[in-house]
């Protein structure tokens, strides 16, 4: 005992006491929600999206500060007029020992396009293999944010000839072991990994759809970690001896979208005055502290996590809470608005709170409870006034959400109803065409300022953090704001 303490002190001196004397060889069990891999769109992305098990790596990865960091590629440079040249790390192999080449990357990108899971603007002619370690990408349309988009785990590179739907063979810190739909996905350490090898032997990712059951599973030590704990359960888990909560930096924002271009009877929010009144009526501070729960929510004014905008986030200030002002702006005229909410990400309490807040200024909100399919169909047909959602930021593109939801040239159907003014479009285009990330951030912040503060085309309600509940013997977990980019290779289990 004494010896170990001494040893530990020595190790502290070398700055590595956090690590055990020898790597603990154990299995970590992680509980997730519903298994979404069987869904058509995700079928070909087993272990990559919407659950990233650390199997595959893209060319570049998303650092916790939303910056782009090298992964399979070590360098990337602009190629005029509209291309990027990637240089791959040399001498790396897939988990089965075969070398990684530019051709494998090209094949992965091609697969993403074929299965319609590509979020960039690539086309058949965009990808060109120069040599084994060099790859040129040239999007079909001008897209200077391509590199920032490619950090998404969907672009995780798999070995040509391996089946990405059944047995993906990749380069990540873990390798595929087995998958039983709706039950579990098991991965093991990749001994061939290019970097520091994972500390765990095995991770079993279990699918448990019911949140209460997940929490009970943690309490009974059936599982070691739960991903995505509700704020209320988190508060309870935090009080249990032997368990603790880890809060990630905000990676999503609760956003109120508004139908800016609707046809009757959904045309009311074309009126900017009314939109401003709605924004003024909602006390966001109380929402954050009392309804969403401190720790999981933070006051923000941006529609993305502020970190994505870097130093420019402060340009977006938000509409201050002013109940009396809102009432005054409405001239005592009672209004009725219809509200839809994404059932997958927004809970009843938030909806009811917003409803109650608007009722106080004389806006009667009709809440329509919809299942996922009905919600999408309402959203895409413009049959709503207000729409609550919680979009996450999973790449490094500061204009990602702006270009998706409020840009008039967005390919997303619902943007027909939510797109903002031509002036906003110009700013978004500037962000998309900016040569440096810094310029892009600045332009995106300007666009967002216009959207939120000037046009009141959307109301950011709260920054949302992912909560992880885990037992105390889980060590080395570093939370990433984007759940999709969470790294498990640093985790180990104390004896």
């Amino acid at each position: 005992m004494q010896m170990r303490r001494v040893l530990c002190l020595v190790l502290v001196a070398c700055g590595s006491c956090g690590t055990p004397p020898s790597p603990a060889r154990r299995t970590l069990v992680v509980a997730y929600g519903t298994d979404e891999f069987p869904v058509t769109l995700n079928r070909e992305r087993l272990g990559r999206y919407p659950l990233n098990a650390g199997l595959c790596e893209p060319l570049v990865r998303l650092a916790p500060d939303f910056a782009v960091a090298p992964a399979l590629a070590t360098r990337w440079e602009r190629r005029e007029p509209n291309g990027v040249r990637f240089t791959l790390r040399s001498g790396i192999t897939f988990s089965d020992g075969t070398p990684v080449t530019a051709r494998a990357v090209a094949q992965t990108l091609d697969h993403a396009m074929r299965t319609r899971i590509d979020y960039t603007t690539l086309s058949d002619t965009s990808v060109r293999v120069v040599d084994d370690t060099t790859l040129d990408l040239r999007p079909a349309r001008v897209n200077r944010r391509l590199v920032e988009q490619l950090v998404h785990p969907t672009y995780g590179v798999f070995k040509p000839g391996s089946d990405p739907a059944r047995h993906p063979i990749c380069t990540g810190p873990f390798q595929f072991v087995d998958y039983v739909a709706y039950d579990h996905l098991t991965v093991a350490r990749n001994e061939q990994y290019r970097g520091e090898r994972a500390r765990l032997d095995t991770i079993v990712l279990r699918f448990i759809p019911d949140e209460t059951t997940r929490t009970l599973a943690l309490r009974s030590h059936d599982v070691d970690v739960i991903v995505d704990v509700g704020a209320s359960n988190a508060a309870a888990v935090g009080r249990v001896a032997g368990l603790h909560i880890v809060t990630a930096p905000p990676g999503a924002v609760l956003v109120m979208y508004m139908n800016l271009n609707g046809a009757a009877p959904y045309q009311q929010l074309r009126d900017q005055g009314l939109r401003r009144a709605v924004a003024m009526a909602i006390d966001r501070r109380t929402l954050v502290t009392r309804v969403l729960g401190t720790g999981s929510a933070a006051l923000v004014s941006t529609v993305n996590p502020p970190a994505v905008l870097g130093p420019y986030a402060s340009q977006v200030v938000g509409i201050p809470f002013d109940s009396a002002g809102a009432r005054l702006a409405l001239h005592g005229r009672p209004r009725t608005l219809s509200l839809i909410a994404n059932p997958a990400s927004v809970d009843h309490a938030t909806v009811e709170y917003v409803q109650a807040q608007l009722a106080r200024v004389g806006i009667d909100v009709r809440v329509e409870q919809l299942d996922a399919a009905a919600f999408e169909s309402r959203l895409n047909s413009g049959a709503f006034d207000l729409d609550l959602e919680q979009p996450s930021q999973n790449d490094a593109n500061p204009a990602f959400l702006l270009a998706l939801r409020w840009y008039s040239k967005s390919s997303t159907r619902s943007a027909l109803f939510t797109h903002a003014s031509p002036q906003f479009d110009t700013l978004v285009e500037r962000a998309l065409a900016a040569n440096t990330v810094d310029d892009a951030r600045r332009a995106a912040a300007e666009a967002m300022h216009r959207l939120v503060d000037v046009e009141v085309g959307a109301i950011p309600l709260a920054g949302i953090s992912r909560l992880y509940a885990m037992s105390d013997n889980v060590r080395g977990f570093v939370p990433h704001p984007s759940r999709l980019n969470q790294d498990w290779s640093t985790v180990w289990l104390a004896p």
Partner: protein
Amino acid sequence: MSLAQWLVRRAGGAVVVWLLISFLAFSLSTLAPGDPAQLMLLRRTGDAPSETEVVELRHRMGLDRPFAARYVTWLSNASRGDLGESYRTGQPVLTELRTRFPATLTLALTALLAGLLIAVPLAAASAAARGTSLDHAARLLALVGVSMPSYWLAYVLMLVFAVMLGVLPVSGSGGLRHLVLPSLTLALGSAASITRMLRANLLDELGSDYVRTARAKGLPGHLVLMRHALRNALNPLVTVSALRFGRLLGEAVIVETVFAWPGVGRWMVESIYDRDYPAIQGFVLYIATVFIIINAIVDLSYRVMDPRVRLGAAATA
């Protein structure tokens, strides 16, 4: 009526019911709001499709044909084992049902067995000790049991056995241990209901002439109960078990969701959340087929085992 005649009539009846249920299942999709082609494209591409894409797919899926024609196509495919593709997963519906049904079957059968194991002794004891505090306690327990929502019971069992005692896993599948809590949740509700029924049957039997005769002959009370009443009261137990089994499959939907049991009930709920109509239709037809077969077997077993049951029973499918 000879057994052969009976079998022919019985089979005919079953086919008619099967056809009706298939019609019912197929009509569900026409009741549904939304355009199936649009929904399918939405699921496949993740974004709302264009008008031309929808029109084209509607044509390819034959959705522009009249209802009757579509029904006939669907039915003939279904009778060949093709229930169509799930919108959500793009997999054949029958494959999904076949992969997931065994888990549900295991759960329901275990629960039924456990329910009977609890209910039969409890009912016998309760009937034998009629009017005593034991009887009252058993009946009160059974009453509370049938009055409790199953998901509520599920959480209580998890809390006690997994969290407080730490003897059983909370959820998932794999070993026998994983089966205990979900099947117990289902079993307790069943047990309560079977106890109530069986106790009443036993009391009826105890009041009947032959038992009174047996008593008059000087046989001790509990012996009478065991020898005569229980045997006769157990007869309808087959029917009750078949009925109960149907209820168990229904309740399994909730219990599977709570316990993360990868059965067909949870799959159904997920399909419903996603408006996956081929899956919903296929599920209804599949379960109906299973039940038509089970009911036919139950009827046949009566016919063979109990000489008192003769014709007339053919009406029940």
